[in-house]
Each structure stands twice: as structure tokens, then as C-alpha cells.
């Protein structure tokens, strides 16, 4: 099974390393034929505006929309979650969001980098101990549609959710060395 990691801009390397650590084959995706060749996809953190523009420049926007419509398993982390959302607040009017998750999220909602943080996050689906979750200029999920299952909350706000085969989290599982979410993503929908 090949798991692609979108490699246009952002934290691609650490997702590839995490995939390798859970025994999956991770491959960077920058071109349409590379997207066609993967079984599932991770959209990493980074700048959602830059990634959106580079998706257009690489002619990946349409093929990605098609794969998502075909229910390819996908995990979006932070900026990647914004690409999966239905609505993005405080973003640019021209930035892409594919609506694979019926959520509304507000970009960089905690404030500047000095408000970034890490914390213990209980996730029932992952058992104990809690995840060490690292939030970097993270978005906040402000609306959750009826078909979306919330898997973890922090201070009442959803921070990890899924809808069908689309998963999204506002934190960075690739930064903490805790591989459980990557493992769950690779196994659960297999």
C-alpha cells in the first residue's frame, strides 16, 4: 500500500518518516501521475495559501478533487485540514478547500507563534496514554456538520474528526513521535 504525502510546501518529511516507522510506504506527491499512483494521501501542515496556489500551478487541483470524491482515504493535519474543510475563515478569498470534511475552520485562530503550544490530548479511539499534541499556529474548527464524527476535543473545540474516509486534525501528530494516529489512519480504512 502506497501512502502519498503532498509535497508542495510544508512538513512533508516528518510525515514520510512517520509512515516509514509504522511500516507503510510513504511517497511524496507533487505531480498528477504521482497522485494517481497512491492508495491514500496525507495533506501536511504548512501554509494553506501557498499549498493552494501550488496545487493550481501543479495542475493537481482537479485530480485531487476527483480522488477525494472517489473516497480516497485522506488525512489532513493543520493546513491540510483547511484544504479538506468546507469553509475556511480568515483565509484568502482565492484559497482552495475541497469540502471532504463538512466542517468550518478558522485559520491561525490561536494567534501568533507565541500562542502555539503542546498538551496532553485524550483520544478515546487511540486508548491510553493521551496523545502529546503539538499545535502550531493552528486553526480552530468552529462548525461541525451532522455527518462528521468528533474523535477529540480540546477546551470544547473539536481538534480531531473524521467523515467517512476523510480524517482531519488541527494539531501535528508528525511532530511528537507518537505514531498511533498514523497507524490508525493506515490500518482503519484498509
Amino acid at each position, binding site marked *: 500500500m502506497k501512502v502519498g504525502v503532498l509535497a508542495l510546501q*510544508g512538513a512533508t518529511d516528518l510525515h514520510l518518516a512517520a509512515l516509514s516507522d509504522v511500516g507503510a510506504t510513504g511517497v511524496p506527491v507533487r505531480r498528477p501521475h504521482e497522485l494517481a499512483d497512491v492508495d491514500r494521501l496525507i495533506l501536511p501542515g504548512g*501554509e494553506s495559501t501557498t499549498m493552494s496556489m501550488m496545487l493550481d500551478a501543479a495542475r493537481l487541483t482537479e485530480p485531487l478533487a476527483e480522488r477525494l470524491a472517489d473516497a480516497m482515504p485522506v488525512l489532513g493535519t493543520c493546513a491540510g485540514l483547511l484544504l479538506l474543510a468546507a469553509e475556511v475563515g480568515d483565509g*484568502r478569498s482565492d484559497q482552495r478547500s475541497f469540502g471532504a470534511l463538512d466542517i468550518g475552520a478558522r485559520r491561525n485562530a490561536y494567534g501568533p507563534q507565541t500562542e502555539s503550544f503542546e498538551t496532553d490530548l485524550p483520544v478515546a479511539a487511540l486508548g491510553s496514554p493521551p496523545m502529546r499534541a503539538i499545535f502550531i499556529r493552528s486553526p480552530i474548527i468552529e462548525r461541525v456538520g451532522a455527518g462528521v464524527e468528533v474523535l477529540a476535543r480540546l477546551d470544547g473545540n473539536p481538534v480531531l474528526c473524521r467523515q467517512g474516509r476523510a480524517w482531519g486534525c488541527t494539531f501535528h501528530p508528525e511532530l511528537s513521535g507518537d505514531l498511533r494516529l498514523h497507524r490508525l489512519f493506515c490500518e482503519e480504512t484498509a
Partner: protein
Amino acid sequence: MRVKRGLAEMLKRGVIMDVVTAEHARIAEDAGAAAVMALERVPADIRRDGGVARMSPPEMIESIVETVTIPVMAKARIGHFAEAQVLEALGVDYIDESEVLTPADEAHHIDKWRFTVPFVCGATNLGEALRRISEGAAMIRSKGEAGTGNIVEAVRHLRSITGDIRRITVADGAELYDWAKRLQAPVALVREIAETGRLPVPMFCAGGIATPADASLVMQLGAEATFVGSGIFKSDNPAARAKAVVEATTNFDDPAILLKVSRGLGGAMPGLELGGLETRLAERGW
């Protein structure tokens, strides 16, 4: 430290652009910049005008923070921890303790562990990089020679850093102590490099990038993202060049895309030969 280094991870394969006005910042974001660096004057102008170069006025940085949605960095003088305190209070996302500004302390860099905001620092070689990391820098950028549009120093510094990293990975245990002595760097960091084959923090490249091919060159030499200063706003068509450098950084290993984005950009910034420089900015820092 993971939170500080985390933002650097998010900027990889991106371009951080020097901007001096909100209008510049908007052009940078429109072009796909991953972050902007707010400063009073671009390095080419600092070089031309001379005088003491300091932290930018807060109003100018605030106007840029209000204009863009991407991270905003700002520069403090080497050793000027009070400027850094002001920038942290203002709420910038990263501080560049930068040799482009006039140094405030000729012996000491800022103790960066005392801050919540992360720092990037320049380095010309591996020892300098490791000293900055030991002081708490969460990102290293090779210095190059800012404001020249000449890539030769960036290449020298990148090759020096990556070459020594490669040599350390084949050193034996006893040799690592000698490396630490020669690099004037903590042996624990040298040992970490021997084990991982890379710097403990992301390494970006700055100083002299003027064309899409320059960006591709430094990425192929091991940089993980690029800083572009005078190269964009001292060129004929900043908006087009900015976008081209962003695409070149993302697709640095694809010559067909590099060719496409290198067309129709108008003139690049006028470059400077290193031999004619009065001040070598890269020599600042200890």
C-alpha cells in the same frame, strides 16, 4: 523546543520574502510566500545607504501583520535582546537575529532560550550553526552575502555546512571530540549530527538569491527553504519574480518547470562582485 522548531518544519520548501511595506507584504503573499520578513530597508539599500541598521519601527511591523495571513518574521540586531523583547511583545512569529543589521554586541549573541518566540540565526559554517543552536536558535539559515544578488557566498556556506556534516557521519568516537574542538561547538550536538546526519534544526538558505535557478541551486545543495531579500523587490517585476521563485523552490528538481518559470521575468536585480564590497555582512557574528 518542539513547538519552536515545529513552525520551521511548516515553512519547509517555502520562500520567506523580505518586505518593507504592507504593499510589499501583499505582493509576497499573493505570490505564494510561506512567510514574510519585515525590515526597515532591504539589504541592498542598507549596503548602499550605510549608517546603523536597526529593528524596524513597531507600526511598520504591525501594518504588515495586519495585512497578511501568513507568518511574519522580523529582524533584531545581533546581541540586542531588548529589541528581541520588543518584537516578542509585539507578537511576531519568528525573530531573525541578523547580521544584516548593525551588531549591538561584539561578543555575545542573544540567549534565545529565554524567549517563547523562536529565533532563526545565520551561519557561514557548521561551528557557527551549532553555537547558535546551543544558544537556542530553532532554525539556521546559511548567511550568503545579503544585498549582492550574488549566490557565490550562499553556495560556499551551504557546501561548508553540509560537507562537514557528511565528514562527521564517518568520524569515529574519538574524532568527534576533535570535531567539537575545531568547530568550537558542544560535543553533544556534534554527536547528534554523527547519529542523524543532519542539523538538529531545519536549515534554510539566505543571501544572494536573485533568480529561480538560484533558488533551485541552493535547494539542490541541501537547503530546506529559501529566504529572498533584495532579489525580488530590486528586480524589474517583483510580482512575477516572486511567484517564479516560489515555484522554483517547490519544484527545484524539475528542470522543465524551472525553464518555464524563468521566462518573462524582466531584469534581475543588479548584482555586486564580492571583491568590490566595503562591508562583508557575513563576517558579523561570532
